[in-house]
């Protein structure tokens, strides 16, 4: 029983992290209807930059964020305006996958060239301790990851709901033509949307660097998992993706402590196929997903 509780607790914490990592993917899909396969590669680019800041300058990993977040925002705008926007609209979905796949390979190759193929890790003192509540151990690094994810997501939602930019962004997501008719510069907004999405990758990368060792090819593992999350959550729905992330995190945690790691990873794909068979638009809303 305590093992199940432990699995549940770990699952919730991990699920929170998944929510952060998947939020960018949902944004891209929302604004441009594209699947950004390179998102995990950018996550690890963020992780490597965090590593550099930490080892070369001896700073706390989170102090990398003032540099990486704006940098990634600009990169995101550039990727959207210079690359994605050039693709022909009729088969954007397919071509964008291939384009971003190429970007992912490019990043992996560059990381391997600059940082070599060896494992890097950022170890903080708190990374190996945990908080014990009623016999359940909550690792500090996972708690930190969870709260960073939660704060980032709250900020993201606040921006999306409250700010003028967020309103135009949501309008663009919901109905591009209509948004343009009411005077929103949808192209520019889409670019910023991409920038915000990639900025979440900067935060996610720093958190990943804290909790796991990484090497240039690490991103492959995450592509399938994160894709499954956004489909289960309903493509394009940031809230749906967050809920799906926590759900899948918990399922993974429980299966890990009761069965084994192979089945735990398999659960992501089982849920993906279930979602497609039962509710192709995803379990959590996302009415626009059906036709894409």
């Amino acid at each position, binding site marked *: 029983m305590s093992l199940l509780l432990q699995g549940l607790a770990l699952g919730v914490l991990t699920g929170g992290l998944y929510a952060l990592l998947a939020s960018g993917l949902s944004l891209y*899909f929302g604004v441009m*209807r*594209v*699947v950004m396969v390179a998102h995990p590669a950018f996550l690890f680019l963020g992780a490597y930059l965090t590593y550099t800041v930490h080892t070369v300058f001896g700073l706390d990993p989170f102090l990398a964020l003032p540099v990486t977040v704006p940098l990634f925002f600009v990169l995101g705008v550039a990727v959207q305006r210079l*690359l994605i926007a*050039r*693709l*022909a609209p009729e*088969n954007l*979905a*397919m*071509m*964008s*996958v*291939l*384009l971003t*796949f*190429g*970007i*992912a*390979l*490019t*990043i*992996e*190759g*560059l*990381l*391997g*060239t600059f940082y070599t*193929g060896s494992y890097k890790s950022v170890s903080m003192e708190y990374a190996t301790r945990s908080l014990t509540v009623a016999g359940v151990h909550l690792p500090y690094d996972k708690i930190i990851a969870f709260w960073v994810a939660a704060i980032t997501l709250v900020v993201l939602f606040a921006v999306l709901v409250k700010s003028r930019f967020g309103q135009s962004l949501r309008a663009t997501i919901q109905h591009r033509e209509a948004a343009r008719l009411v005077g929103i510069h949808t192209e520019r907004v889409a670019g910023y949307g991409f920038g915000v999405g990639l900025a979440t990758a900067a935060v996610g990368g720093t958190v990943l660097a804290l909790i796991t060792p990484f090497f*240039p090819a690490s991103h*492959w593992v995450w*592509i*399938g998992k994160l*894709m*499954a999350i*956004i*489909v289960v959550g309903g*493509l394009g729905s940031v809230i749906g993706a967050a809920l799906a992330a926590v759900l899948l995190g918990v399922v993974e945690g429980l299966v890990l402590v009761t069965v084994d790691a*192979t*089945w735990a*990873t*398999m659960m*992501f*794909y089982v849920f*993906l*196929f279930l979602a*497609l*068979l039962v509710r*192709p638009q995803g379990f959590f809303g996302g009415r626009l*997903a059906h*036709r*894409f």
Partner: protein
Amino acid sequence: MRIASRGLPLLVAALAIAYPFLVPNFYLVYAGALTVMYAAMATSWNLLGGFTGYVSLGHSAFFGLGAYGTGLLVVRAGVPWVVALLASALLVTVFAVVVGIAAVRVRGASFVIVSIALVSMMNLVVQGWRSLTGGSTGLQVPSPFPDLHRGQTHMVFFYLFLALLALALASWWYVSRSRFGAGLRAIREDEDKAESLGVPTAAYKVTAFALSALFVALAGGLYAVWFGSLDPIFVFSILIGSYMVLMSLLGGVRHLFGPLLGALIVAPAGEYFLIALGETQIHLTATGLVLVLVVLFMPDGILARLTRRRAGPSIPDETAEQRLQGVAQ
């Protein structure tokens, strides 16, 4: 002009047949066989991708299943390799029908995600099912021609892959002229309209999906008996799947010979990048940049660029209405 367009494929075919005798060493025969294998797989990928526009990044799932199916039938059941190859390809096709029914319910991005997931799933299953597949230890398949020298085996398989390529090309050509092909093209242009005009889109898509899986599975089966060592993380690799896409796209998905041309460029180029830039990982960057450039500047492929005229059978540019008339006739 006519002679050029008719004669060129024949000349290339003749060169291909003579190739193993023209090259100075067995490595080049081996590399040639791999290239022809990729060409056959890219062409069969194009049975789905070219006609319907559905991009599958996960065709290596069928490659791996074909390979493991054949290998397991040979090793565990003692079936002769030819029988094993055909039986396993058939089983994979049935599997593809089942998967296809679920997969083609979704379009565009979701479909790509499903195809990626399929590869990861198959990798987990085969790696996890240790008692049957040998798991991470791999599966060692005995050579079907134990008496042949290694180089001679390469030559045999070069021709087997060449035959498979011919079969895949013939199928594509046949489909492109059939009503079925017209229906698939209509799906590519406007799926909803095609459906409303009575094209059985779901059945057509599943058929194309399965047909395309069949040839890839055959390639996988041949690979298993030729190569002799199977390892789940290598046969169920997204990279293999993405090579099929890159080759088709580079050559031109609307052309019969597009994927073949793409394979003839990508496979040797990959080799070159690896040897020239092999000391660092920058060769991955080179591959990635090539992909980005092709997608951005040549999404219709080389054949569409080079010739506005039809170089061999291809999918002409026409509106969905024209195409649907073709279906209705």
